[in-house]
């Protein structure tokens, strides 16, 4: 039987993303690689930053001090919460938390496009397909066959490139292994980041880079006070940046 309640024991894997804000230059390679990998369509001519389909968005946080310290660029994919606010609100179970990977999966073919999950997500990492996906003639041939194209009127979001996990699992199976080789499962954004600001791995493995990085004093999570338990960690050597970004923000408009 399917279970909707999250397993109380720690999942076997906790795929985790760590973003080193010191390194991010806001170049946009992560978002581009994500769009290429996940068959995200080109923009409609009327699209704006509020109506576009972007799974990996890089936001610009204002300078850390009035004196104008370095700007922080904050790449925001789906935070893959352990206690996701979106899963419970979906009226027809188009969102699923997989306790074995910690990935919050969105199933666009099940989605009716009510957008309740978007209202529920405090990170605003979900996109609604306001337009039909369209590619110029011939460009469909460049689509990634490992990812299906989502139609108009459904919600979609980052799923940590789960197709790469699927491929890694198949490869492990073909080799007769039970566990995947961690090197085989790297999301497109992490692979693409030219300044290597993104780390990805299984935090259930205590020795993994992400487990170590996510636990040190420089790491924090967005809106941690809301108890959503994201598996995307941010880190900065600057305590001001850490303090500023880890707040629950209702800034003065």
């Amino acid at each position, binding site marked *: 039987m399917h279970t909707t309640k999250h397993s109380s024991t720690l999942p076997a894997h906790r795929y985790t993303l760590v973003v*080193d804000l*010191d*390194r*991010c*230059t806001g*170049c*946009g*390679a992560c*978002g*581009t*690689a994500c*769009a*290429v*990998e996940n068959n*995200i*369509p*080109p*923009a409609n*001519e009327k*699209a*704006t*930053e509020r*109506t*576009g*389909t*972007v799974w990996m*968005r*890089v*936001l*610009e946080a204002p*300078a850390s001090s009035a004196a*104008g310290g*370095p*700007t922080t*660029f904050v790449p925001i994919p789906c935070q893959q919460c352990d206690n996701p606010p979106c899963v419970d609100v979906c009226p027809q179970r188009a969102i699923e938390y997989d306790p074995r990977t910690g990935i919050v999966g969105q199933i666009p*073919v099940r989605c009716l496009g009510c957008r309740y999950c978007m209202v529920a997500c405090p990170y605003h990492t979900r996109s609604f397909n306001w337009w039909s*996906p369209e*590619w*110029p*003639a011939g*460009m*469909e*041939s*460049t*689509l*990634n*066959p490992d*990812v*299906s*194209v989502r*139609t108009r009127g459904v919600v979609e979001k980052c799923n940590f490139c789960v197709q790469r996990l699927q491929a890694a699992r198949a490869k492990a199976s073909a080799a007769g292994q039970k566990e995947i080789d961690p090197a085989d499962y790297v999301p*497109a954004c992490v*692979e*693409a*980041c*030219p*300044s*290597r*600001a993104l780390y990805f791995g299984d935090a259930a493995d205590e020795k993994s880079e992400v487990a170590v990085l996510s636990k040190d004093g420089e790491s924090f999570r967005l809106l941690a006070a809301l108890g959503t338990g994201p598996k995307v960690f941010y880190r900065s*050597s600057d305590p001001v940046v850490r303090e500023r970004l880890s707040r629950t923000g209702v800034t003065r408009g």
Partner: protein
Amino acid sequence: MKLELSRRDLFLAGGGAVAGIALSPVPWKLLDDLAIWTQQPSTPTPRPAGPLAFRHTSCSLCPASCGLKARCFGAQPVGFSAVPGHPASDGGLCPLGLTAHHLAKHPFRATLPERVSGGKRERIDRAAAVATLSAALAACGKNPKRIFAVVDGRPGRSLSRTWRALATATGGLYVTPPAAGASRSLEALGKRFDGGSLALGVDFSKARRVVSFGTPVLTDAGTPGLLARLRAESRRRPAAERIEVIQVEATRSRGAALADRFVPIAPGTEAAFALGLAHVLLDEKLADAAFLAARTSGLDEFASLAARFAPALVEQKTGVPAGVVTALARDLAASLPALVLGGDPASAPLSAEAEAAIASLNLLLGAPFGPLPVRADAPREADGDAKLASATPFDALPDGSVGLLLLDATVAEGLVPWERLKRALSDGALVVSLSPFRAGLGEKATLLLPGPAPLEAMLELEGPSDAPLSTLALAPALLLPPKDLPLPEEIVREATAAAGLSLPAPSSGRAAALLASKRGRIYDPSAASFEPLAGIASVDALAELFARGACWIDDAAPEPKGRFALLREGEAPRLLEAALGAPSALPARLTTLPRESVSAAPPSLLLTKLTRETTLFTPPAAANASAARA
């Protein structure tokens, strides 16, 4: 016997029919199929075009020539990743490169020659293209006001030799674009060397502090993300070992926002600010005295010039508080070697005087040969070079004189502005572009001879001129060009012949020339290893390596003997005048996608997407154009 059919019978029969349908698969199967139908996306269905394979090549979209690892199904690449350890890019790849495989399907892609006549754009066949071009070629040289000029965005390639030969044959000009970004500073510094002009590169890993006068060192400059990575890695090291980036700029650009320190200055006062720093360095005896003594000349003259730029005056000129100037100069001196770069390819270049001041500052900080190593060009075929036309700098292109302008596919509008080109043209000039796109300069051409799109042809790629070491890749094609694509080089040759001119046969001796030099190492991406070039047995073996996406990297060049002039003949008064003169108006700045301006190709539609759908980028000019037309 008469059959009476009542309403009751009709109802019963209807009921029977309903029961019959209910007992057949119709409703249940239809329900299931309709349910599936509602889940059917009216979208393309991507299917693998063959088995999965990885292939290596290099990106040709900008001079950085990053290594590409292409994920292909059959012959179709569907995505790229960077190649860690690649000599040209060290694992970096920018958004442009990540979408290179889309460009062949770009809506602006042209696959047939196009001619603009009477304001109307029409497709023409190969013969018509040849005829048009040969007529124009034949007309050249007869009238000194209608000369031939060819602009080559990437000089030094084998194809460049053809263009030089063509310029020679027509008595025309072979034009090269100005240096981009940091290269301008390096050029200015290199020219101060008395042992002949030096080619210098930038090695960020050897610098502790980087001062950038508007150069997007954090967001762009050479290898994508390299300085940002180096700086971030140094952050967790002891304070003395940290790399710091100081951006000196009139506006808070993205690079300025990212920098450790941002020093806003009045526009056009870079020279004054640099001289102010020099003043403090010399006044407080903080400059690299050993380097100055051993490798420079004209210190006294320069010192007396710099003495005029006390921080108080600098504050008055630049708007930067005197304390900030002093503190910055002391910080630079405290963490040598430091590095100063100036100019941004996407905005107005710095004045020659500002570059001169920046060059002197680099000397005071002892940058040459450390963070600014000497580099040698990649080996080329030498034969007959002397007979070919030499390069005319783009700035020297005479106004109103060009009757036939040939723009190579590598010419990017960002470095070769159309407005400037237009000034060089005479009335009724034929502008031929070899760009595969009906965008950028390709859109401006009156005769478009579209060539292979990026990744559709084997390319000769040298790394950027500001890289610490020369690199060379003969990058294999990943995509098949469209069938019947008339190759522009062939059309040009045919037209040349038709015009009664002769051109030497196309050369393919680059690999041989490289092998003959026995310099450097070659990187094999599939093995992720380097091999000394000397160990390669034959040109064929080298060609095969290149066909697998290999990249050659030069050995470090020895430090040359000689001195840099802190000031050159008669430079001091000009510098003084420029630095003390009124600040110029704020340049109209374009914040662009990384390298957009120096790429000849329009951005992929996915980049246009990010421009439209995120707040991160302000729209680059090309994306705006595509938006307007879409």
